[in-house]
């Protein structure tokens, strides 16, 4: 058999890293990192940690690191299409207020 048997040590290390990252993201939520115009910094920190945790799970627990290129393509396609879904949607929603002359056509412009 050519399957990779991952050493237990690696699983333990990944497990520990995931717990540390969880503690880190909870701790970071108690601080107002940006404030004012930088109010999104907290969100960026929390999401960066979440993406790191998800990457660890996918690469090690889900064995993608040792998987064939075919699996890599499918995983990558899933993430890519998710980014299209979120990216294109936000490119509309977040830019609506950039042009003040436009009529308030809903979506939160009214209180």
């Amino acid at each position, binding site marked *: 058999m050519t399957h990779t048997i991952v050493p237990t040590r690696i699983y333990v290390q990944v497990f520990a890293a995931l717990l540390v990252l969880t503690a880190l993201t909870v701790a970071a939520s108690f601080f107002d990192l940006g404030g004012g115009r930088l109010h999104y910094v907290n969100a960026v920190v929390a999401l960066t940690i979440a993406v790191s945790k998800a990457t660890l799970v996918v690469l090690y627990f889900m064995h993608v690191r040792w998987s064939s290129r*075919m699996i890599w393509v499918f995983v990558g396609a899933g993430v890519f299409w998710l980014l299209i879904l979120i990216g294109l949607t936000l490119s509309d929603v977040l830019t609506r207020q950039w042009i003040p002359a436009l009529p308030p056509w809903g979506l939160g412009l009214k209180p």
Partner: protein
Amino acid sequence: MHPRRRKLASIDSPLQHHFVGLEQQHEASTLGMWVFLVTEIMFFGGLFTLFTVYVTIHAEAFAEGSKHLDLLLGSVNTAVLIGSSFTMAMAVKSAQLGQRKPLLGFLVLTMFLGCVFIGIKGIEYTHKFEQHLVPGRNFHLDSPVAQNVQLFFSFYFAMTGLHALHMVIGVGVLTWLLVHSWHGRFSPTYFWPVEVSGLYWHFVDIVWIFLFPLLYLVARHA
């Protein structure tokens, strides 16, 4: 294929007749699960996108709603779920090595941690019902943005509810694995059911890895 023949195939020879070899069969089962998981990414992705849109529009109300969530229970549940992913990874390893007793042990541990997660979720839901924070006729909150806080809780219950449903299905799949492991059906040449179920379990863990910061942490400072 006739059900009886399939059963025989899994006991006598792990290779199904339509595959060239075990290697191809293994690759096909893993790839098949990943294709399903990609559809799940898009399924949860739609909810995540909608949540992101509404958290930018109703930032104040979502921050208020988020403060009503139990951060301690949420954090504990995150650790519990990560622990269950670790035991699941160890279960797959035990199956790869053909170690029956560790496999049974890790499967039971994973199921136990999964049930702890669902139990804690149940406690959180109960608190929300008691505090009248469940959207609908009995929702009550003294706030100028109460209507939009209700919207936050609609997202909370829809997303955590769907996640919990996936957990329940996962525990069901693990029960099936446990029965087959008990009868010694898995071996170093036939372990893909354990591995593929593991992929599903880890995916449900990843969904929570994103749900937790979005619902419990990010919205607080939105």
